[in-house]
């Protein structure tokens, strides 16, 4: 097991390297840099721009170095917890991001749990009642969840929640808790606001998961051991719970790898529409103003989140399923 964990963590390194190269390329691609757009903005406001000062700033932040060297600086900085400097906010990136990252993690995590709680019983029902009306209806409902754009669903739910419950549900917490340290009341406020984004983001991933769980369970139900169990007189429910369900539980854990990117994508858009205090709204702002280190840190963080999520699901799978953890080792 330890060997597997070690191997699995080592495999993350090249993945993260490729991701960092990709992210750096993306944030490097726009012509010009923050200083240019800053200078243009100043000029538009009718203020003079001191080119010498700009050049000095460029030199200070290393913008006069070749791209490759800047990349290595960037990666080395991140390894030490230094994500660079946000030009727009005039503070280190890590100060800007801070809490927002944890809230993103929180929203994503709760969404995954929500997806599981919804998808599991529905997938089970659909598989055991294949081609029934319930199966069709639930599948269709799931598809609708895929088809409605997340951001529209967010707007509509926001409107109806306002009418029915009278709560304003932009944001992730009551406005007075914004800058406050974590407290019991703040946590309560977050929980009260959390359910809307979770439902919205969850709809997209749930349908896919139901579909795959259903297909997986159907495959499993056709196997011979199920027939044997039925033939010897085991109760259908017990037959289902005893083996096929446990088998598809593995799949359930491993499927996180495929829904996590979708969930994080959805979370970003929903966050922008609902102006949640997560990474979404800030990411789009940073992208617009070419605040490259901030945007890069966000992209890197989101990618890192998925990679870690997949790692956790792989490890959980290895605990559940001995075949997987033994494959890496030499015992046979």
């Amino acid at each position, binding site marked *: 097991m330890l060997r597997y964990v070690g191997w699995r963590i080592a495999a993350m390194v090249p993945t993260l390297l490729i991701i960092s190269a990709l992210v750096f390329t*993306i944030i490097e691609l726009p012509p010009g840099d923050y200083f240019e757009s800053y200078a243009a903005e100043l000029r538009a406001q009718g203020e003079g721009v001191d080119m010498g000062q700009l050049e000095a700033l460029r030199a200070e932040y290393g913008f006069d170095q070749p791209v490759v060297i800047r990349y290595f600086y960037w990666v080395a900085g991140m390894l030490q917890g230094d994500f660079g400097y946000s030009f727009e906010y005039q503070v280190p990136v890590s100060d800007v991001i801070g809490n927002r990252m944890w809230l993103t993690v929180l929203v994503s995590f709760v969404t995954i749990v929500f997806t599981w709680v919804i998808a599991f019983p529905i997938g089970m029902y659909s598989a055991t009642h294949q081609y029934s009306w319930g199966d069709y209806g639930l599948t269709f409902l799931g598809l609708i969840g895929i088809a409605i754009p997340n*951001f529209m669903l967010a*707007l509509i739910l926001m409107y109806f929640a*306002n009418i029915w419950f009278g709560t304003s549900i932009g944001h992730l917490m009551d406005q007075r808790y914004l800058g406050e340290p974590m407290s019991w009341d703040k946590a309560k406020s977050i929980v009260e606001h959390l359910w809307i984004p979770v439902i919205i983001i969850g709809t997209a991933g749930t349908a896919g998961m139901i579909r795959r769980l259903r297909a997986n369970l159907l495959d499993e139900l056709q196997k011979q051991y199920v027939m044997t169990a039925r033939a010897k007189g085991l109760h259908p429910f017990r037959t289902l719970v005893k083996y096929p369900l446990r088998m598809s539980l593995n799949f359930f854990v491993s499927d996180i790898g495929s829904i996590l*990117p979708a969930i994080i994508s959805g979370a970003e*858009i929903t966050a922008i529409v609902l102006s949640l205090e997560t990474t979404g709204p800030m990411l*789009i702002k940073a992208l617009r103003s070419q605040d490259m280190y901030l945007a890069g840190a966000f992209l890197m963080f989101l*990618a890192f989140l998925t*990679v870690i999520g997949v790692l956790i699901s792989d490890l959980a799978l290895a605990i559940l399923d001995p075949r997987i953890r033994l494959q890496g080792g030499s015992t046979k």
Partner: protein
Amino acid sequence: MTPLPPPGAPLEHYVSAAPFDPMSVEAASAELKRVYQASQLRLMWWKFRQHRLAVASAVLLAAFYLMILICEFLAPYNLHTRNMDFIYSPPQRVRLFHEGQFVGPFVYGRTMTLDMETLKREYADDRTDIQRLRFFCRGDAYKFWDVIATDIHLVCPAEGGEMFLLGTDRLGRDVLSRIIYGARISLTIGLVGISVSFLLGIVIGGLAGYHGGVFDLIVQRIIEVIQSLPSIPLWMALAAIMPVTWSPLVIYFGITIILGLLDWTGLARAVRSKLLALREEDYVLAAQLMGANSSRIIGRHLIPGFMSHLIATATISIPGMILGETALSFLGLGLRPPITSWGILLTEARSVSVIAFYPWLLFPMVPVILVILAFNFLGDGLRDAADPYR
């Protein structure tokens, strides 16, 4: 039936007059013969036909794509026609009966009053003003496909009257017409995007599957990484790169390329795995023994074998692209006006107050949902039909 001869007497020699066919026992029935002799395409069609929803979706999508060919003709107004007297006018109902009498399709005229307290425009039906709709009539002048100048529309309001079946937006533009025009961009962006990713997928996946070795390993790794990344933030980042100064058309192509750039991985994976599996088939060995070179084997024998799978995979990934475009445009990172797509139309409904006061601005969502559902069902049907021998 002749009676048996008496015991002891020799049996009479009997010859059946019926023609003798030694294969009659083994010959298949006409029904089976039909199945066995059918070409692969025909088998696929039969299998596809069984998936009712997929067929219905195919018909719907065909109708949508036909629509974009003639949208100037179908739309009652032009894309940018503004009706300053009817700003934020709610949808009008097409009626057939006026006070119990059949009149034919018509709408009531509208009168607008400004509520001086809320400054909200209030529209009321004027029950005396019957405006009969005209068909195949002259309306806004336009250039059909930018070539033929004409002004024929399928349906237009009565002379001097107005007709807004889905309401108007903040500039008094007809929402229905804009949805019809928006289909042009929204529906083609998925197709162009999928061609980009199709090309990338086949070339990269094909090379990886055919050459194997280090290249395959690297490609595998890259595919894994790209698939594990959340696509929308990356799309956002790529879309933000495009400078504001670009012309809308260039931005359109930029967006399609961006959508395709991150989407080829699924196709490449399918191509690679299929290529690896099919390479070991006997018919490939036979072709090799007959002296076919590798490009002929790939082009003539391998690719036709999994083309159907590729098309099914591609169909399933189109909805993601359409949604991606909608989301990007909604966030203001994708297409920009004056280009009109469904995503652009939905940006009008960006705030809760719009939903509260002008809910008809949400209508562009309906075709989005329909098209995405249709592509999903069609993809399901195609995937089932892609392997008709199973």
